[in-house]
């Protein structure tokens, strides 16, 4: 029962690329999260204890026979382009599952396709990161994970719902959560709009991002 919340956050990372798994694992561990990496959507669902046949029928998480304890995952970050089950397919399965749908999901992709991004956000993804993912992206995960600690899973996503029995010291985090939710709602309604304050990295914003010291070249030939 540690006072530090960071040490309790467990992230499941899904990517078919071994290099990207190594990268995301390091990024997440640098942020003091516990990390599990898998190389496919199928394995992710297995790990989460979800089986094809009992998706939306159960209220409680179905425990896989291989797990002796309930798997506690605070966030799932997944690549979009994977053979077999794509990150989008995985997102949908998670959102269709009554036991898993409250786990925040973040999508990563090496390709900047606005329609893809909107589709993922509309399906319930919290964020969409362009690869290569950086520490500044990973730093944005915390508020989403805080939500799962504060929220009653049966509750709807409404503002100003007070939780009974929550320690007073969390009120600052709740404010952050509400701000984040408000931002999320704005983003969900207006997927086409450029959000300079949300820091969603899209190719259009490449040259404007404050945390880059060198301009990024994307598809341009090198000038020597």
């Amino acid at each position, binding site marked *: 029962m540690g006072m530090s919340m960071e040490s309790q956050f467990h992230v499941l990372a899904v990517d078919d*690329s*071994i*290099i*990207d798994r*190594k*990268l995301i694992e*390091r*990024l997440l561990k*640098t942020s003091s999260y516990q990390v599990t990496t898998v190389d496919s959507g199928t394995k992710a669902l297995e790990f989460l204890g979800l089986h094809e046949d009992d998706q939306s029928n159960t209220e409680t998480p179905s425990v896989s026979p291989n797990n002796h304890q309930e798997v506690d995952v605070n966030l799932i970050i997944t690549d979009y*382009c994977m*053979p077999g089950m794509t990150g989008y397919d995985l997102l949908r399965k998670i959102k269709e599952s009554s036991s898993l749908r409250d786990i925040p999901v973040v999508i990563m992709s*090496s390709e900047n396709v606005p329609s893809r991004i909107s589709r993922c956000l509309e399906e319930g993804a919290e964020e969409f990161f362009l*690869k*290569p993912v*950086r*520490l500044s992206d990973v730093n944005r995960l915390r508020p989403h994970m805080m939500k799962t600690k504060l929220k009653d899973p049966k509750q709807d996503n409404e503002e100003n719902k007070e939780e009974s029995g929550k320690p007073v010291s969390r009120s600052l985090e709740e404010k952050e959560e509400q701000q984040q939710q408000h931002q999320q709602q704005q983003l969900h309604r207006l997927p086409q709009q450029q959000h300079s304050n949300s820091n969603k990295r899209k190719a259009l914003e490449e040259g404007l991002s404050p945390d*880059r*010291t*060198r301009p*990024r*070249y994307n*598809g*341009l*030939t*090198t*000038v*020597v």
Partner: protein
Amino acid sequence: MDGVVQLQKQLVDYIASLFHEGFLDEQFNQLQQLQDESNPDFVVEVVSLFFEDSERLLNELAKALEQETIDFRKVDAHVHQFKGSSSSIGAHRVQNVCITFRNYCEEQNVEGVEPWHRCLKCLQQVKHEYSLVRNKLETLFQLEKQIIAAGGSLPAT
């Protein structure tokens, strides 16, 4: 300690030249920043994974282009992977030739020998850029080893 200082300068200059010549980009800096005392070999580890994965992809690509009927979607899938992994480690020039390669794959509904020739040429370019950056990175790691062996520390990024 003169020797170490010289080596350190050599390393800094070498890395700068790799950036200047476009072999590496900002992402490589990001990798270096993720390396610390608790993960002192992180960059070497990731880059080694990249080397292994690249060899595999180059083999797959060569095989795919040897087929009677070329499956361009398969070729494209491999190149997509290669583009992704090179981007993840900051191998900028490799990433660029992969992008060009993919553009060719996308126009592949044409019969005849021409598309195949272009793909082969692309593959050659990818191989070439890959072996260049591989040599550069191996040289870089060698320099780092020498510095550490001489009791020096690696310059901060």
